[in-house]
């Protein structure tokens, strides 16, 4: 059974998908992550994460339009599901709680 535990990279991919909102697909997510994090990312790693997230039910996908740049090939758009949003909120809440627990330097 697949747990809902999110790995670090999965979290990043999920966030990138959420940022791109209606324009999230493999290439754009890869670009987004590269820009946000300032390091190069393999397309394979991104797709693997997308696939896992979809299996966990945090993302859903549909096939959509093509552009000339893609050689006429369709895009697979990803959107964050309710469960995905909840998972992100959950992580953020945990992080916030942990941040606030750090004792303030005097």
């Amino acid at each position, binding site marked *: 059974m697949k747990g809902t535990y999110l790995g670090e990279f999965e979290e990043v991919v999920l966030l990138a998908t959420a940022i791109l909102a209606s324009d999230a*697909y*493999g*290439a754009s997510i*890869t*670009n987004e992550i590269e820009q946000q994090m300032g390091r*190069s990312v*393999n*397309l*394979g*790693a991104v*797709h*693997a994460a997308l*696939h896992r997230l979809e299996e966990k039910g945090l993302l859903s996908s549909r*096939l959509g339009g*093509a*552009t000339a*740049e*893609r*050689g006429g*090939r*369709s*895009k*697979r758009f990803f959107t964050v599901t309710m469960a995905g949003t909840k998972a992100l909120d959950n992580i953020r809440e945990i992080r916030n709680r942990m941040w606030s627990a750090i004792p303030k330097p005097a």
Partner: protein
Amino acid sequence: MNTPIQPPRWATRLLHWFCASHLVNDLEGDLLELFAQRVRTHGPREARRRYVRDVISLIRPFTLKEKPEKYPQPAFIQSAMIRNFFKIAFRNLVKHKLFSFINVLGLSAGMTACFLIALYVHFELTYDAFNKKADRIYRLSSDIQSSAGTLQYSITSWPFGPALQNDFPEIEAFTRVSKENYLFRKGDVKFNEENTVLADSSIFQVFDLKLLQGNPKTALKAPFSVVLTESAAKKYFGAHPAMGQTLLVGDNGDAAQVTGIMQDPPVNSQLRGDVFLSMTTHTRHYNTAVNDEWGNFGTTTYLLLQPGTDPAALSRKFPAFLHNHMGRLLQQENISMTLLLEPLRDIYLYSKREAEQSGSIENIYIFTIVAIFILLIACINFINLTTARSLERAREVGVRKAVGAGRWLLARQFIAESLLMSFLGFLLSVILSAALLPLFNELSGKTISRGLGQEPLSVGILFLASIFIGLASGIYPALVLSSFEPVKVLKGKLAMTGNGAMLRKGLVTIQFAISIALIIGTMIVYSQLDFMRSHALGFAKDQTVVIKPGTGNSRNALKTMLQNVNGVKSVAGSSAVPGGPNSQAHSKLENARGEMQIATLDVYRVDFDFIPQYGLKVVAGRPFSSEFTSDSTKALVVNEATVKLLGYHSPREAIGKKFSQWDREGTIVGVVKDFNFKSLKENVKPLTFRMLDPWNSDLLSVKLDGHNVKATLEAIETQWKTQYPDRPFSYYFLDEFYDRQYRADERFEALFLNFAALAIFISCMGLLGLASYATVQRTKEIGVRKVLGASVASIVGLLSKDFLQLVGLAFVIAAPLAWFVMHRWLESFAYKTPIHLWIFLAAALLSALVALATISFQSIRAALVNPVKSLRSE
């Protein structure tokens, strides 16, 4: 305008190869989009690098796996359905044990026969093929034309090889090979090596004979160098190393050194020997002049041509070559000569020249045809039995169709069944072949294969063939069965269509025609061999033992000693005995026109006792006699064929005519009646007898009185031991020796007999299956007939009549065919038996009887059944 920069093609191809089809489209889209962006931002180099990296990074489990379809299409191969096919097939096999047994056994018998024949044919066709340079190796043969006709030799004289290589750069190498009989000794171990090969050192350059020890370049260079085959080395030295050891060669016991150990040459090689002795031993010691004697024909010369040499072009230069080197000699002898190049691979099967071993392409054709026939019969059986049983399966077909089976699905089911059958047939035939292979080797007189373990490729081919047979013979029944209309079938209205019955009958007729033709063939081969064995040869061959003593006084001494042995009637010396090789001499004889006619004639050098002891009938003049001292140098006895050659009307006219042959001149003193000194395949050729010289190496024929042969032979051996203490005693019986010429024909007969028996066996199994099926079909009819008063005999007759008609028709087809083929075969014999009518009658009767016996097995049982049983079923 620049073409847009493209990503590496191979990476894209890789993606398409590994990626699941439902993903590849958008993944490639992403890749292309990123590539285009990166070309702009990072440049084409970096973009390509990243593209490749991305593609490789996409090789992940989820991209490899195809997505299951929502509504799956029925797959072409469905394991559940296939399993069901085989389950049903297996149940059917078990349910109809007799049918299945007949089917599988017939098929495997056919496959086994075919497999064994294929091994044999392959063996024969690949003679000498182990030589990698075989396509460049040629045997130098010669035709010698004189006024007496053309003599075809496979040998030449010693100077040819070196002179040819010297004159023609096209010739890369030559090697001369002659087979001799040498005595070899090692301490007390002595062997008369009949397979001693004298060979030039270049033999290892020309032929692919593998030296396990020793240097191929020098092993046979020096005189008295010996290369032993592995098995010969074992024979002389056992487990001890043989290299460098000494063997004593010949009667004088010259010391020879072992300079190499050779892997035993392949069985299907013409160059067979146990001991290889350097040719220089012969040319520098035993016969020092032979390298310059152009007229001394006695060695086989093989030439290795340079790659790309046209043998025809080379042959065109031979006449000039002959003129240069042999012109005067040829003119002196008044003969002309042609040199020919025979390709190595063609010699064994095609060359008609004298050879130690020769195959026959005709026999290969015959066996191939027989193999195909037997396989055909087996396949026909299969088709017949399967189709005949279709009625029983009709209901099954109906039900399957009613619940939605398509025609193609049903066809596949039946093909699966026939595949199962042919696979079982394959397994059985592998077992049978493995069991029969030693027998088959013995039957064919050759080690065709040491075992199936050595033949994985052939077994693989057999497996493929069995699958093909299963498919091919399964298609017709499958189409017939799957074409039934469910409504009719389920109503029980289906009757066998007339077409199908015709086809089955036709197939049975073909089967029987083939079997009958094979029976006739076997009988004719047998009667020809019987004819040859019992034919009066014109000389006494019984109770005669032949031994090979030395020459000169020792021979005469042995002869005198043997004459006094108890049980020996007489002893005669000669250079040759009937059935063996003899020399030929260039001779001049006075013919009817008074001219000295030149001819190359067969020669027997004999002593005074030969003609009387062999019971040769002197029809004119007298045999050699010790009363005439001139006989030893000035007399010649000829046979009737010579008289005819010279043009005389009666033998008496030839008496006193002049002759000149091999340094002797004199007159013909006697004429003997023709006798078959060669096999009955040839007509009696002109033959001359001359007195034996003391130095001739020759044979002693010892006539026994027939009482206690064993004791007499022991006494002879004792005498031999006193005369030749160093040499092993060996002997052979003349009648066996003579009949050995027919060994190849006897093998042919035995093989033919076995395959004919197999063919009739398989045909009968087919008939049995068909008859039992037909009887079951007519159970009710038989019941009704019996109720109305038919006798058992009349019912058996009724059931048998149909099938006997087919056998009759088969005979009509087979008889002329068999006559034609066997007539051709008999053409190769000079003395042949006529094709008797009784052979055909016997074959017809035999096949009819066998067929009747097969059918009655079923029909009598059916006729005896109580009609109450057969009629009660509804």
